[in-house]
């Protein structure tokens, strides 16, 4: 099967890419002055030289960098991401604890941005020079241009403080007892603002692209034919035009996965969303190399999986891709 062949090839590239990611990141982190022991010492409010030397020896940080790199790659190949210096726990454990929160945030923000972006794009394409179309553009570009932490704080002030609809931080209300349903509801309640914030950056991209793509399609012969057949304008737009306008948008969405993840770092910090982004920030500031590398490894993995999913979706909506195999 052609698809399987492509898949195997993709996975092969992915493994090579992941190893490159590891080596590159390891080198870059080690190029920066200072290490986790400096942070641990600071965290303790000061320390003494003996204690610091002892901790360095415990973590193998007194070894030459090349030796550290070699042993690290060796362990990763055995699916061992090592031990976090800072949290004193296995990195895989830390990451799996955080991954669901990040995936929830990233995917819901992505879907939200896609749905709203496409709707706005379609809407704007109907009357590309009308005032409403310009308004959409303005709104979308504002979301794109505003720094995401600023958007987050602004939404907090608006919808947590002035109109207290949503909680200010966290992922669930710890005082809520009960089964799956009330818990899920609480998570959804907490998810709204972070999702809007993270999604806001991408609405502009998707709506602008969808608008351009729609305009192109709407001008094509088969749409004119459809109109000439006397189909309702709504059917022309939604059934005939949109189907052909979508593939570029979906492709872009796939490419944006890495951007969504990096955006999540900031959004998670503003909203105390307990995902990988917050873990990443803490470990970067703490120079907790195994955790940083682990997170980058998983982020690369998420991006790769996201791209594969995009491919699958494209196959679903575009028979031409399917045909190409």
């Amino acid at each position, binding site marked *: 099967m052609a698809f399987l062949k492509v898949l195997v090839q993709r996975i092969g590239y992915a493994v090579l890419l992941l190893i490159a990611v590891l080596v590159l990141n390891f080198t870059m982190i080690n190029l*920066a*002055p*200072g*290490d*986790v022991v*400096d*942070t*641990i*010492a*600071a*965290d*303790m*409010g*000061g*320390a*003494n*030289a003996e*204690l*610091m030397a002892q901790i360095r020896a415990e973590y193998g940080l007194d070894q030459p960098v090349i030796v550290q790199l070699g042993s690290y790659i060796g362990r990763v190949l055995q699916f061992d991401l090592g031990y976090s210096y*800072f*949290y*004193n726990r296995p990195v895989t454990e*830390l990451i799996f*604890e*955080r991954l669901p929160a990040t995936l929830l945030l990233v995917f819901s923000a992505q879907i939200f941005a896609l749905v709203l972006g496409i709707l706005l794009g379609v809407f704007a394409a109907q009357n590309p020079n009308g005032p409403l179309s310009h308004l959409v553009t303005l709104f979308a570009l504002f979301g794109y241009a505003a720094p995401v932490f600023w958007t987050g*704080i602004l939404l*907090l*002030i608006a919808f*947590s*403080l002035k109109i*207290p609809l949503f*909680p*200010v*931080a*966290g*992922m669930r209300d*710890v*005082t809520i007892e009960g089964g799956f349903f009330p818990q899920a509801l609480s998570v959804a309640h907490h998810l709204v603002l972070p999702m809007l914030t993270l999604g806001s950056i991408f609405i502009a991209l998707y709506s602008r692209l969808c608008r351009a793509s729609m305009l192109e399609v709407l001008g094509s012969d088969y749409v004119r034919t459809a109109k000439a057949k006397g189909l309702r304008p709504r059917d022309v737009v939604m059934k005939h035009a949109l189907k052909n306008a979508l593939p570029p948008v979906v492709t872009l969405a796939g490419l944006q996965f890495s951007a969504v993840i990096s955006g999540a770092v900031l959004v998670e*910090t*503003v*909203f*105390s969303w*307990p995902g990988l982004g*917050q*873990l990443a*920030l*803490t470990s*970067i*500031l*703490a*120079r907790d190399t195994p955790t940083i590398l682990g997170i980058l490894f998983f982020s690369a993995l998420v991006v790769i999986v996201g791209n594969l999913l995009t491919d699958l979706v494209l196959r679903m909506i575009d028979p031409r891709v399917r045909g190409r195999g």
Partner: protein
Amino acid sequence: MTTFLKALARSVAAAALLVSAAHADEPVKGGTLITTLPQTPRHLNPAVQSGIVTGAPGAQLFAAPLRYDEDWTPQPYLAESWAWSDDGLSMTLNLVQDARFHDGEPITSEDVAFSVETIKANHPFKTMFGVVETVETPDEHTAVLKLSQPHPALLLAMSSQLMPIIPKHIYGDGQDPKSHPRNGQDVVGSGPFKFVEFTPDQQVILERNDDFFIEGRPYLDRIVYRIIKDAAARSIGMENGELHMTTFENTVRNIKRMSENDSLNVTDEGYAAIGPINWLAFNTGQDGPLADKRVRQAIAYALDKDFILNAIMLGLSQEAKTGIHPGSPLYFPDVNGYDLDLDKANALLDEAGYPKDANGIRFALTIDHGNPTTKPQAEFTKASLAKIGIDVSVNSFVDFPTWANKISNHDFDMTWDTVFNWGDPVIGVHRTYDSQNIKEGVIWSNTQQYANPKIDELMNAAGQEIDPAKRAELYREFQEILAEDLPVYWTNTLPYHTIYSKKVGNPPLGIWASSSPYDLVYLKDE
């Protein structure tokens, strides 16, 4: 403390009493206090981890021999009484009877001895228990700390932040206490609250210890520490009522905004023991202008401290004229405060042999800052020193390790820094000025490379002086000489504030702020 400050403190205390009397508040039992931590603690055991985010929940989980309220007098806690020997070489602690750990095991003098040994071997502050040679346990409720020299700092070291009593039957199992699995999960302590949950980056949940050794306490059923790193999010949480209390707030704009909210109380009381001080540090050890104290003094004269206090800190922090926190009874404010005087600054630089060149420049220096909160001070320093012919370039470092590495390896001219007193000067003050503590690679050691035999001698004497009056006298001289030598130029305290809703009764305003036991804290009935 000056008489003025004392009077001020007294009137504030009186006002507070009046307010509480007006409400005729009797502590109420029950309720869940929702408060905050600004970072995720590595774990919850303060015996092997310093820092306020471990100290806050740690003080609830573990009891200490002594406790402190807003004045600096020690009060009984797990020790009903304590006494120095006449020669100051031993401290006898008498523990309360029938105190039990959360798992029901009795708290004995063995646990005290074990805790002291563990802290001594693993805690970064070696000066706290370094002089404790042995801990004798003549009976179950008596522990005697034997010292190699008199050590008055012990009294402040015996509070919750620094000397939690940890159970020997759990932490004495041979595993490394620094990475013990029970530090962060299933923690068994001796304090007013028991461990329920610790989820990094989310929350720490504690519940009432029904078997607490002080009858009828604590009042609260639960404490939830929500870990919220973003200061703006914490202040919005306070304003919309989602949080009852937040401590260690130091972003002045947020504090200002919260202080305008009628439903919130905002106070800077409670941070005297932790004692955070902002200062401009000079690398006195390298060849060049900063080795000359006249140059350092000139720089101090050229910086307008009022601008820092009022424009940068918005009037929310106190002036600090020495390395000892203004809230400490050992603080001596009658030293040279280096009020703005550009003529004097210029004269000192001329005298030191650094005339202005044709462009009006005397020499160039760099200033580093690693903490984003000190960026305004760094920029302000550059602008101020330009006026006296010193060309300053500012280096910003986004992350702590890079900055710490540079400073601790003495590769800098000047840097803005924040350093904590941690109770007694022996613990957090001496390290900055001790010539024996010039250690490459160790941040917050004597990174200024300052050495003065007279200062070393004074610290040595004060560290061993049991008589409080004589001790204060030694520290007075210490502060006077330092204010003249100026290895660092102290400007202000960090504007730490506690913000609490009107619902919170007995907020932690003692000298250890949130690192004190919350057994007296309660939530008022609506």
